[in-house]
C-alpha cells in the first residue's frame, strides 16, 4: 500500500504497567467526565446539579468506552478510525492476557479465568445464604441482606452460565474445530471480552451502595423504588448484553463463512452446531432485556411512566419483555454445554455420535421453540388468560427436541466401550442431572401444578438441576476435556476424580431435597421458613458446604497442573476433531499447514479415514 503511514515500530504493552491498569485509570476518568457532563446539563437546565443516580448512569456509559480504549483498543483499533496506522497488542508472557489482545486463544483463556473467578465468588455468596438458612429465623444475614446477597448470587451466576462455555470454549476451541486461523472479527472478539470487566466490577461494588433486592429478574415495581444497586444491575445487564451480541455476530460469521475445505454442514462437530444456535439466540433476543432494564432505569432516573400504574404504566409489560429474552437465555446457558456433552460422549464411548442429524435437529428445535414460551414464567401473573394454554403447550413441546438430544446421548453410550476418564464422568453426570431437571420442569409447565409450585424451592431445585446440573457440569466437562489442549499439560487425574465425585454427590444431595422443601411450601428468595422444615434445611446447608468445598479441590488441581502438570501431547483422548490434529497448545495461527476435512468427526472404526489432515508446504 503506497499510502501507508510510517509503521509504529514500538511493541506496545511489553513493559511497564499492564494495559489493564491504564484501562482502569481511563475508565475512572471517563466516569468522572460523564458525571461532570450530567451536572453541567442539569445546572444549565436550572435543576440542582448533583443527582447521584443520573450521574452514575451517564458516568458509567462514559467509562465503559474509555476503559476499553484504555486497555489497548485505542492502539489496535481506535487509531484506525482517525486514519492512523494501528498496532497489535501482542506482548510476550503473562502480559498478553492483560490488554486488548486479538488472538482468540488468549481471549478464550481470559474468559475462562475471569468467569471461574466470578463463579467462585458467587458460590461463596451461596455459602453465606446457606449459612443463613441453616435454621429458621435470623441467623447471620437477616432478611434484608439475605435478599440482596440472593440477588447478587443469582445475577453473577446467570452471567457465568450465559458466558463461560461460549466465552471460553466457543472462543478457544470453536475456531480451531472449523479449521480457521482466528475468529472472523478479532477486534470485536476482544471487545466482547473487555466489556465484561467494567460490568463485573460494577456488580461487585454494588453491595457498597446497598445492593439490590429484586433478584436476577429485577421486576418492577420493586425495582423502581429500591436501592441504587438496582441501577448497577441494569447497567451491567446492558453492557454484558452488548458483549453477547457482539460475540454472537462473531460466532455466526466464523461458523458460516470460515469453515475450512471439506468441512460441510453434515461434518460439523456438534459443539460447533450448539455454538451456532446459541449465537443466534443471543443475537436476536438479548436486545430485549436491554430494553426492559433501560425502561426501569428511565422510570427511576427521569420519572418515566412505563411501569408505574399511578402514571398509567403497566408492570406486567416488564415481565413480557424480560422473559422474551430470559427464557431463550436459559437455552443460551444449556445448549453449549449439551454440545460439550455430545462432543465428549462419542470420544469416550469410541462410537459415532448416535443420530447426529436428529441431535442437530433437536438443538435447532429447542432454539426455535425457546422464542415462543416466555409467558410460562407468568402463569400466576396473568391468571386465567386465554394465552396461557398456548404457552403451556409450546413449553411442553420443547421436551420433544430435548428428547432427541437425550436419545442421541443415550444411543451413543449404548453398548459402547466406555472409557471412564474425568471428562466422560462429567458428561455422564449431565445426562443424569438434566433428566431430573427436565422432568421436574414438566410439572412447572403445567398450569395447575405451577399455581402450587411457583415461587417455592421446587423452582429453585428445578433450575439448578438444569443450569448447574447441565450448564455448569458441562463447563467442567469442557475444562477437563480441553485442559490438555489449552495448557499443553495433563491435570492430576486422581484429584480430578475427587472433585468430580464430591461435586456430583454434593450437587445431588443439596438440590434433590429442595424438591421436597418446595412441595412442603418453602418460599424461595426469603431468609425464613416454617420451623418444621428446619432439619432438612440444615441437611441441605451442610450438603451445600460439601459441594462448595469440591471447587477448592478443582482450583488447586487447575492451578498446580497448569504450572507443573506433565506434558499432555497433542491428542491424549484419541479424538478426531480438528483441535486434536494440531499441537497442544496450538501455534499462533492454530495450524502448521492448511487443514482439510476428509470424513465424519465421530467415525471411530479402525479403518476409517481421519476426520482431517494438515496439508503442508508443497501440497498446498
Amino acid at each position: 500500500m503506497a499510502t501507508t503511514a510510517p509503521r509504529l515500530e514500538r511493541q506496545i504493552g511489553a513493559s511497564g504497567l499492564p494495559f489493564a491498569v491504564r484501562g482502569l485509570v481511563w475508565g475512572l476518568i471517563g466516569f468522572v467526565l460523564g458525571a461532570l457532563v450530567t451536572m453541567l446539563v442539569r445546572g444549565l437546565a436550572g435543576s440542582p446539579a448533583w443527582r447521584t443516580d443520573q450521574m452514575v448512569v451517564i458516568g458509567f456509559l462514559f467509562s465503559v468506552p474509555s476503559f476499553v480504549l484504555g486497555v489497548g483498543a485505542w492502539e489496535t483499533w481506535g487509531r484506525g478510525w482517525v486514519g492512523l496506522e494501528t498496532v497489535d497488542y501482542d506482548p510476550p508472557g503473562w502480559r498478553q492476557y492483560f490488554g486488548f489482545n486479538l488472538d482468540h486463544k488468549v481471549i478464550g483463556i481470559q474468559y475462562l479465568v475471569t468467569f471461574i473467578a466470578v463463579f467462585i465468588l458467587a458460590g461463596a455468596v451461596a455459602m453465606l445464604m446457606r449459612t443463613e438458612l441453616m435454621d429458621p429465623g435470623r441467623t447471620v444475614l437477616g432478611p434484608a441482606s439475605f435478599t440482596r446477597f440472593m440477588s447478587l448470587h443469582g445475577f453473577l451466576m446467570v452471567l457465568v452460565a450465559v458466558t463461560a462455555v461460549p466465552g471460553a470454549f466457543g472462543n478457544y476451541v470453536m475456531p480451531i474445530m472449523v479449521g480457521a486461523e482466528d475468529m472472523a472479527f478479532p477486534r470485536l472478539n476482544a471487545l466482547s471480552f473487555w466489556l465484561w470487566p467494567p460490568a463485573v466490577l460494577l456488580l461487585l461494588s454494588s453491595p457498597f451502595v446497598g445492593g439490590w433486592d429484586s433478584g436476577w429478574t429485577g421486576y418492577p415495581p420493586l425495582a423502581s423504588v429500591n436501592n441504587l444497586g438496582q441501577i448497577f444491575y441494569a447497567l451491567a445487564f446492558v453492557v454484558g448484553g452488548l458483549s453477547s451480541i457482539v460475540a454472537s455476530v462473531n460466532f455466526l460469521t466464523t461458523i458460516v463463512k470460515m469453515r475450512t475445505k471439506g468441512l460441510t454442514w453434515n461434518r460439523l462437530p456438534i459443539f460447533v452446531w450448539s455454538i451456532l444456535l446459541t449465537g443466534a439466540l443471543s443475537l436476536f433476543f438479548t436486545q430485549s432485556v436491554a430494553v426492559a432494564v433501560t425502561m426501569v432505569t428511565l422510570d427511576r432516573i427521569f420519572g418515566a411512566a412505563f411501569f408505574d400504574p399511578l402514571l398509567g404504566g403497566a408492570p406486567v409489560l416488564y415481565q413480557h419483555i424480560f422473559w422474551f429474552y430470559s427464557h431463550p437465555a436459559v437455552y443460551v446457558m444449556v445448549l453449549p454445554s449439551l454440545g460439550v456433552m455430545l462432543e465428549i460422549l462419542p470420544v469416550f464411548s469410541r462410537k459415532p455420535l448416535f443420530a447426529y442429524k436428529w441431535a442437530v435437529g433437536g438443538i435447532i428445535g429447542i432454539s426455535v421453540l425457546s422464542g415462543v414460551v416466555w409467558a410460562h414464567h407468568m402463569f400466576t401473573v396473568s391468571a386465567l388468560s386465554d394465552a396461557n394454554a398456548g404457552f403451556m403447550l409450546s413449553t411442553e413441546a420443547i421436551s420433544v427436541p430435548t428428547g432427541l438430544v437425550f436419545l442421541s446421548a443415550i444411543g451413543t453410550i449404548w453398548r459402547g466401550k466406555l472409557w471412564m476418564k474425568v471428562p466422560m464422568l462429567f458428561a455422564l453426570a449431565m445426562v443424569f442431572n438434566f433428566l431430573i431437571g427436565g422432568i421436574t420442569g414438566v410439572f412447572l409447565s403445567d398450569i395447575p401444578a405451577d399455581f402450587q409450585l411457583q415461587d417455592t424451592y421446587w423452582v429453585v431445585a428445578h433450575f439448578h438441576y438444569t443450569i448447574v446440573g447441565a450448564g455448569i457440569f458441562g463447563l467442567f466437562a469442557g475444562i477437563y476435556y480441553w485442559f490438555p489442549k489449552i495448557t499443553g499439560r495433563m491435570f492430576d487425574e486422581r484429584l480430578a476424580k475427587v472433585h468430580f465425585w464430591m461435586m456430583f454427590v454434593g450437587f445431588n444431595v443439596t438440590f434433590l431435597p429442595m424438591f421436597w422443601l418446595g412441595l412442603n411450601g418453602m418460599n424461595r428468595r426469603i431468609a425464613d421458613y416454617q420451623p418444621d422444615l428446619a432439619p432438612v434445611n440444615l441437611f441441605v446447608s451442610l450438603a451445600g458446604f460439601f459441594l462448595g468445598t469440591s471447587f477448592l479441590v478443582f482450583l488447586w488441581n487447575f492451578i498446580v497442573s497448569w504450572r507443573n502438570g506433565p506434558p499432555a501431547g497433542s491428542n491424549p483422548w484419541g479424538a478426531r476433531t480438528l483441535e486434536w490434529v494440531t499441537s497442544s497448545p496450538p501455534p499462533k495461527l492454530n495450524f502448521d499447514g492448511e487443514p482439510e476435512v476428509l470424513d465424519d468427526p465421530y467415525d471411530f472404526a479402525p479403518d476409517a479415514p481421519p476426520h482431517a489432515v494438515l496439508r503442508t508446504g508443497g501440497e498446498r
Partner: protein
Amino acid sequence: MTAHAAAHHPPYEDLQRFGLRLFIASEAFLFGVMFAARFYLLGFEKAEAVNVVLGLVLTVLLLAATWSSHRAVAAAEAGDRGAMQAQLLLTMALGVGFLALVVVEWGAGFTEFPISTPYGSMFYLITGTHSLHLLIGLFVLASLFLQERRGALTEDKLWKLRGGVTYWQFVDVVWLFVFVILYVL
C-alpha cells in the same frame, strides 16, 4: 491482523457484509421490541400535541441523507473522490440537522407530553434510542471522512465505506417506522 490476509476464508468484505447484516437483524429486534411495547402500553393512542409536520420534515431530511449516502458510495466506486467527500459532508450535515430538530422537538414536547405520561415515555425512549443510533452513524461517517482525508481509505478499503453507509441507511429506514408508529398512528 494483517497476518490473516492470506488465509483460506472468503474476502474480508464478504465476512464484513455478513456480520453487518447479522448486527442489523439484531438491531431490528431492538426496535421491534420497543414498537411492540408501544402498542402493549398505549394501543393506538397518541398525544394529540405531537407535531406531524415536524415529523414529516425529519423524515424528508433522512430520506435525503439516504440518497446522498448512496451517492457517496457511487462516487467512490466511480473513482470520483471529490464528489464522494462532498456527498459524505452533505449526509453528515443532514444528520446533524436532524438531531438539531429532534432537540427542538423534545424541548417543545417536554411540556406538551412530558416523560411522566405513557406516550411521552414511549416517545422519548424510541426517538432517543433512534437518535443515539444516528449519532453513532454520524461518528462512523465522520471517521470515514477523516480516513479519506488522510488517504487511508484506499481502493481496497472501500468496503468500510459501503458498510458504514449500509448501517446509516438502516438507521434511516428505522426512522420511517418510528414516524408511522409515533406520529401517524
